[in-house]
């Protein structure tokens, strides 16, 4: 005779060590197995899109910093690209190179945090996390050199960047990209082939290729499912068509592939930075931009391959100094939409690592 059991509702979050901020999952459990899951958003809603309507085009840049606060440079870049497209502002060559270097450094920094916190969710008690943060610190130091800030950089401007890079930046960058590959190898050796990690992450939380495309997932989450889609190649913005790099993809679309894709992408980013460093020209870093940008009536959408996926800004101008509407396509939010399909049928422990492997930042999900 079967014992009569009842499903068990567990609130994971909003304050929970593994929700990476204030996310809440309302999980219905059968023992340890998840039978249903309902994500609850909005605990970090700050109304950034609405705030943007009250500010000048330049004044919005600090707001974009606060979207995905682990990848401020990328957010800056996506926004200024949209403004440039809207107002038709040219960008000097040197600024383009600086932007690419910054965006790729930011990708490495963001992936370091993603990989570290994923392994932490797997239960490797803070060790990978702290080592990743040690490396991230070096990138943050580089950013501090150019922007004076360590988290929210507010560095890029429509028509260029706010300052030229200081003369000690390139030697420091050179040192960093010479050291970094051996560190990535070291972390790879430590855990990538670990039996427990394989058992935990392989085959867990599969996002099938069709579903990944249908929910318009992007970034490492999409590529891990085996789709070779990277906006840097598919619709090159800035000067990405000048660099040689590969798009790492996974096969199965499980947590392990998402982890591997991120590790591989760090290596590719280093390749891009190396090429950009060799080619960077001298010259102006900011074009002739009026103090207050006042684009003609119209609309523009610019998207970039941010560390977490396709980050897009849709701007509408009504011929004033502030955008009439600013919509943000946030990859973290859209990648989360398949959460239920990925989690149902797995245990709580798997749900935690699936969530960790998607790599979201709550600042971007809730905006």
């Amino acid at each position, binding site marked *: 005779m079967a014992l009569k059991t009842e499903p068990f509702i567990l609130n994971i979050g909003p304050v929970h060590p593994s929700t990476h901020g204030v996310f809440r999952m309302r999980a219905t459990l059968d023992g340890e197995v998840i039978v249903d899951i309902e994500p609850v958003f909005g605990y970090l809603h700050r109304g950034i899109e609405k705030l943007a309507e009250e500010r000048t085009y330049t004044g919005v840049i600090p707001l974009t910093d606060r979207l995905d606060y682990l990848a401020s440079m990328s957010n800056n870049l996506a926004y200024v690209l949209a403004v440039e497209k809207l107002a038709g502002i040219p960008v000097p060559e040197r600024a383009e190179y600086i932007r690419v270097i910054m965006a790729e450094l930011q990708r490495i920094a963001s992936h370091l945090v993603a990989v570290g916190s994923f392994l932490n*969710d797997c239960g490797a008690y803070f060790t990978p996390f702290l080592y990743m943060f040690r490396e991230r610190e070096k990138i943050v130091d580089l950013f501090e050199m150019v922007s004076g800030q360590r988290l929210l950089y507010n560095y890029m401007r429509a028509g260029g960047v706010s300052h030229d890079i200081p003369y000690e930046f390139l030697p420091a960058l050179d040192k960093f990209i010479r050291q970094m590959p051996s560190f990535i190898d070291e972390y790879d050796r430590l855990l990538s082939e670990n039996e427990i990690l394989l058992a935990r992450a392989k085959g867990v939380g599969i996002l099938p290729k069709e579903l990944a495309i249908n929910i318009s997932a992007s970034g490492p989450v999409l590529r891990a499912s085996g789709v070779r889609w990277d906006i840097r190649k598919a619709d090159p913005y800035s000067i990405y068509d000048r660099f040689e790099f590969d798009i790492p993809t996974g096969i199965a679309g499980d947590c392990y592939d998402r982890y591997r894709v991120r590790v591989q992408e760090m290596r590719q980013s280093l390749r891009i930075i190396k090429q950009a460093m060799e080619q960077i020209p001298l010259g102006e870093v900011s074009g002739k931009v009026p103090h207050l940008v006042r684009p003609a009536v119209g609309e523009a959408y610019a998207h970039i391959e941010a560390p977490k996926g396709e980050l897009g800004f849709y701007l509408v101008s009504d011929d004033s100094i502030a955008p009439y509407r600013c919509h943000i396509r946030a990859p973290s939010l859209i990648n989360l939409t398949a959460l239920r399909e990925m989690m149902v049928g797995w245990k709580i422990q798997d749900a935690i690592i699936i969530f960790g492997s998607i790599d979201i930042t709550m600042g971007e999900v809730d905006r």
Partner: protein
Amino acid sequence: MAIVNLGLNIPNRLQTLPPDWPGGFWWHWLIFTVIIIAFVLLLVMGYIYIERRGMGRMQARIGPNRAGPFGLLQPIADAIKILLKEDIIPTKADKIVHWLAPVIAFTPALMIFAVVPFQDGALLADLNIGILYVVAVSSVSTVGIFMAGWGSNNKYSLLGAMRQIAAVVSYEIPVVLAIASVVLIAGSLSLNQIVLAQDIPFILLQPLGFLLFFIAGCAEINRSPFDLMEADSELVAGFHTEYSGMKFAMFYLAEYAEALVISAIITTLFLSGWRGPLLPPWLWFVLKVIAVFFVMVWTRTTLPRVRIDQLMALAWKFLLPLALINLFITGIEILTLPATSPWVMIPVNFAIMAVLILLWSKFFKLGWGRVEV
């Protein structure tokens, strides 16, 4: 059963042991009780210090270094802080169970040290069934943990406690089987006799038994990679989520005291206990205990955590068959080759261990699979 025997045995056993102690039974009892409590509390503090500093070093950071020289007073600072914290009992908690749980979880760890020898004959009670007593008493703390999980009326606590029960029930068996093969070699259940029998540390004669005991022991006391019951990244803090103040301190103490117990038992069973050249016996004992604990800290900082079904699979599909085979082989060796020099047996045993582990890894992988709903 063990408890009954204990009650019957203590008086007459202790009056004969140890003969050179002044004052007879009660003095002996008093002195050793004080020694044990001081030893456990001091070494737990030492453990906390080692874990925090050691983990700090392994994680490329410094670790606590503000309180006292080299941060040595950090455990004391922690204790003071925790004592001053407010003691919160959830409204819907079962108050009696909630209150009783930390006591029940902590006491067994102290009780076990009654039979652990600090040097030859220096122990509270040289029970002739010592190791059986250890196995019996160490399971009691699980009751405390389950009471905590149930009594706090919190879903995370309950999940942690359920995992704990499942893990302890499964891992008790390989633990006991690994102990049994040691007992076969030593020919005694008394921990003092087992140490005296170790002219060669049993880790050399029983390498497989040592590994099994170490893994299963770690699983029983929630050390990583089997720390599913606390699992801070999943269950927040598992069974002690709802505890604060001194009650939380009791659980914290119990956790480290259990780690101390397991390392003391490993030292006694496999690393020849207090025996060693030059240094005084008790110092050897403490050094070996700390060395075992250091390995635990090391695995904790390195390995990810297994999943609950993988934890069960590891116990039942990997550890249990290997422990049975190990017991069987040990029995055969003792029956057929009693007079063989141990120096011949050591390479043979290591070879057997290597073959068995390789063979079993072929049969069995930590399974991954989706549970259908």
